[in-house]
């Protein structure tokens, strides 16, 4: 496995399966009276969060603590970042403190990739701008495998604000690697220009896709990242792309409904759907801790081979492209084949 986890696209099938299998063992250990393990004693994990996050930060913190690592939480508010310190200088500070791993969330796509060039420890991407959120995709895949027993051949429909969603990007790449078939459903304005180059299909009609889906993943409409009008009104969005009880009735009996959280009940997902037995939303949170323990163990649990090269150039590339395309709104899909599609992302 790579020394860093920056992009789900970097993971080979073997890497991804190793993470899921390790997480499965660790999830079992979490049932014991004492779920704590001594494995990462003496290692230091820094949570470097430049963006607000509750569940991801807490999940990483819980994972590191269960493995007995020391955890240092760093949030940009109230730190020297507020005084104007650059990412590089913060990185060098962490380096001087001897961080074995840095878990970073940053508003700029590609920040973890830059960081990986500056610190000696492992860098784990906990969400960078609109680029990737690999551990979320891993926990989603883990949840699907637990519920449905397999990933190969699974039909996964991801619905909503694909343009701003790092969760969707990471899922598309990881699920492709794991052999699932992904369909994206969104208004044309909320699809990135480069979507034609992604290994997935696209649909604009939610209801026709539903009967053929094993998994429906609903995404939040990220209004904090939206500077333009992407759809006429929330009500119209909700009517065309929201998952309510009537739409849920179109699903096959075994199909599950996922949401990475935080949810906007009544916008992309109705309360009756979120609270139904099909919903895996709470399980996803539990599974998140096991998957992040697996990632920390696999990255930090062994010897450090000296002279490791910085990560393959995959991390950064197409990063911001989705946002860049946003101005052209309606034409987004049409132009898709051309734009950034050649990039590794």
């Amino acid at each position, binding site marked *: *496995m790579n020394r860093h986890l920056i992009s789900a696209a970097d993971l080979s099938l073997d890497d991804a399966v*190793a993470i899921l*299998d*390790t997480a499965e*063992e*660790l999830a*079992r*250990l979490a049932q*014991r*009276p*004492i779920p*704590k*393990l*001594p*494995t990462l004693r003496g290692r230091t994990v820094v949570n470097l969060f430049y963006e607000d996050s509750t569940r991801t930060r807490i999940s990483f913190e819980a994972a590191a603590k269960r493995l007995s690592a020391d955890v240092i939480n760093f949030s940009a508010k109230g730190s020297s970042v507020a005084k104007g310190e650059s990412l590089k200088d913060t990185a060098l500070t962490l380096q001087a403190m001897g961080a074995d791993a840095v878990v970073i969330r940053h508003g700029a796509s590609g920040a973890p990739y830059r960081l990986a060039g500056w610190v000696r420890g492992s860098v784990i991407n906990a969400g960078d701008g609109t680029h990737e959120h690999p551990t979320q995709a891993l926990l989603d895949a883990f949840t699907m495998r637990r519920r449905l027993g397999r990933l190969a051949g699974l039909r996964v429909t991801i619905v909503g604000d694909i343009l701003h969603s790092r969760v969707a990007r990471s899922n598309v790449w990881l699920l492709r690697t794991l052999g699932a078939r992904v369909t994206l459903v969104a208004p044309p304005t909320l699809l990135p220009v480069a979507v034609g180059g992604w290994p997935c299909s696209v649909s604009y009609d939610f209801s026709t896709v539903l009967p053929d889906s094993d998994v429906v993943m609903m995404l939040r409409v990220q209004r904090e990242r939206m500077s333009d009008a992407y759809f006429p009104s929330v009500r119209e969005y909700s009517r065309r792309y929201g998952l309510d009880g009537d739409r849920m009735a179109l699903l096959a009996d075994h199909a599950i409904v996922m949401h990475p959280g935080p949810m906007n009940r009544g916008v992309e997902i109705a309360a009756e759907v979120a609270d139904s037995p099909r919903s895996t939303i709470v399980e996803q949170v539990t599974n998140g801790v096991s998957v992040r323990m697996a990632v920390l*163990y*696999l*990255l930090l*649990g*062994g*010897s450090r*081979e000296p002279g490791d090269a910085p990560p393959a150039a995959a991390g950064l590339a197409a990063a911001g492209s989705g946002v860049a395309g946003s101005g052209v709104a309606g034409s987004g899909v049409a132009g898709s084949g051309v734009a950034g599609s050649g990039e590794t992302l």
Partner: protein
Amino acid sequence: MAGMSEAAGPEPAGPAKGQGRGGKSVLGSDEIRRALTRIGHEILERTDGARDVVLLGIQTRGVPLARRLAARLAETEGVHIPVGALDITLYRDDLRLRPTRTLGHTEIPDAGIDGMVVVLVDDVLYSGRTVRAALDALGDIGRPRAVQLAVLVDRGHRELPIRPDYVGKNLPTSKREAVKVLLTEIDGEDSVTLQVSRQASR
């Protein structure tokens, strides 16, 4: 032994390879069977007919050995003992000396281990560090009344104050030698051989 220095090396230990290198045979399949039968009887004697006993095999080759012990006792004595598997990777003291290891499967019988007599089963006892890790792992799972240790081969060179309760064969070795245990369930044949290792064992 879970790869402390011999047995489970990083390369797959195929039977043909073992023979090809021409190690000195120590135990054949009949002798392994007899050793396990004897250990089984000793466990019965010393634990009052195996009351409250749980057999836990240490991954990887301790697991089939524990299963065989339980099967033998069920067959010959009609005693049914719960069997489980214990992976000690996360408790090892040498994690930082090697690349990350894959986790094995841990399976604790439903009855749990609280108040029970846990018999740890492993293929080779050497430095004692694997057993130390197993004891730590047990401490996080529950509180057994007692813990005992059964090994197929005791090759000496202990680095910790640990001793076995049941031994299939005492095998004096030099540190330069490696004991290779092959089991049908994993390797397709039963044998224990003594080989001169390429590098001195640590």
